[in-house]
């Protein structure tokens, strides 16, 4: 089984976001970048499928700046077989432009399964998996927490409001992974050493035309200053009163 995992380099979730001088993008100064947490579930699942079948190939693919290579090497160290970086110098690429670049590369590769993290924790759009799948003419199942592969088919449990849906999908298919699917492994020392010798292909990302235009980026609206209504039990009647009389939510 050939599995392609699409991944992204993102700011660490503890990052304090500052808007850059252009007023439209993140100021990268002092920001630590690394793997997208949801992608780790996708890579882990791909490795488990390959290990269980004792055959197949896991390719990690990304559209990103040159430094994305580091993230891809992390996945090679976890056990992926090879990596492809579509090096991107465009200052902004929306979900369609990313999906088009991915799709144009994936179209040239044989695959049975296409995995994505369900969301990248920078743009938080959760759309690249679905758009890529549609461009490739394959089905998609999003936010998957359990995956069972059969012959030419897969059964997926996907998270929905108040429960989950069991979805049957024909392969090849795109699947986006949600926390709960598995526990991603850490790279071992031998994995890190082996990663250095694994095939790593780097080529320019195809130009992609964004349909969305970022007009501005701002800090979120400030919440009005709150107040401590009391200490310990003294606060209880005050809180009930405030929520009823002022906030009118209870």
């Amino acid at each position, binding site marked *: 089984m050939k599995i392609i995992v699409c991944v992204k380099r993102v700011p660490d979730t503890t990052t304090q976001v500052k808007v850059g001088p252009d007023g439209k993008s993140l100021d990268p100064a002092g920001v630590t970048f690394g793997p997208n947490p949801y992608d780790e579930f996708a890579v882990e699942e791909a490795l488990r499928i390959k290990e269980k079948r004792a055959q197949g190939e896991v390719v990690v693919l990304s559209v990103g700046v040159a430094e994305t290579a580091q993230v891809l090497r992390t996945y090679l160290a976890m056990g992926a077989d090879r990596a492809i970086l579509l090096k991107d110098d465009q200052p902004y690429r929306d979900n369609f432009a990313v999906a088009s670049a991915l799709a144009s590369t994936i179209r040239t590769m044989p695959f049975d399964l296409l995995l994505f993290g369900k969301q990248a924790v920078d743009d938080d759009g959760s759309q690249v998996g679905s758009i890529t*799948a549609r461009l490739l003419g394959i089905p998609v199942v999003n936010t998957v927490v359990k995956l069972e592969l059969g012959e030419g088919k897969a059964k997926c449990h996907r998270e929905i409001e108040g429960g989950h849906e069991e979805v049957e999908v024909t392969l090849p298919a795109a699947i986006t992974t949600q926390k709960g699917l598995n526990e991603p492994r850490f790279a071992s020392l031998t994995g890190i050493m082996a990663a250095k010798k694994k095939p790593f292909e780097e080529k320019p990302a195809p130009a992609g035309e964004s349909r969305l235009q*970022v007009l501005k980026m701002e800090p979120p609206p400030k919440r009005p200053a709150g107040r401590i209504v009391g200490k310990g039990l003294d*606060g209880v009647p005050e809180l009930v009163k405030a929520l009823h009389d002022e906030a009118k939510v209870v």
Partner: protein
Amino acid sequence: MPGPILVFVEQRDGKPKKQSLEALSEGRRLATALSVPVVAALFGEGVKPVAGTLAHYGADRILVGDSPNLRHYSTDGYAKLLGDAVQAAGAQAVLLSATAMGKDLAGYVAGGLETSVAADCTGTSVVDGKLQVRRPVYAGKAVVTLGFAKLPAVLTLRPNVFPLSAADTARTAPVEDVACPFGLADLKSVVKDVVTSAGKKIELTEANIIVSGGRGLKGPENFPLIEELAQVLGGAVGASRAVVDAGWRPHEDQVGQTGKTVSPSLYVAVGISGAIQHLAGMSSSKFIVAINKDPDAPIFKIADYGIVGDLFEVVPALTAAFRKFLGG
């Protein structure tokens, strides 16, 4: 001539979902500002009888796909029908609520239209006759304003953010049938079953009130304190990442950057210090209450009302006070 606003209306058990009616309400406001009509699209089996009610929320035309083939949601099936409707109507924008279904469908429809999705929008506006949206990025640590270089625009709207218009029951609109162009055998993805989580009554992302617990609870055995308060308030139970990672609560309860983003009317954070990842998931709540023994906990910086104190003392007293207040 820019076309109408098309709103996809999701239904559960034949009833339009509130989140979709919020999207329809917002679609109406936008359409009025743009001087264009609103088209609502409703798919399912046996849904036609309720279709007319969508006029109450502002639809000028209602498209109904009513077929046994649409009984269960299918990404490719619904996307085909919705994409065709967008093109046939010449819509300039299609709006969906950012529910599990809406998020799933939006990208697949957008891909078919060779366009992007402005996902999880929290604001819309019309500037010089053109649509703009606002949406949070970096888990709400920043907000971007987006314009659209190419139409149609595909938007998902964050639930609980856009006001639901009062139903105007005197308003009517024509209901038109849309033929289902595929058979079940043509579908590549099919929902086989829907499993509801045991004992779950209110879904976090749909809840009007949420009571969340954090590490301050000291152990899973103390979560009944949270559950009781939530029950008295008619709310849902949430949790911080720390307690989910510790295995005290299931992942579906997690609020924050690697969990759910919620915007209830009232969010009560109990024993949660307020790590930036948690704040990201709940800071768009209308009112925030924090109960924590550490007066310097970051959660107090964004809380509207705070109680500094021992949660084991404060929460049971609060539950009792609300029970008395709401019961009497």
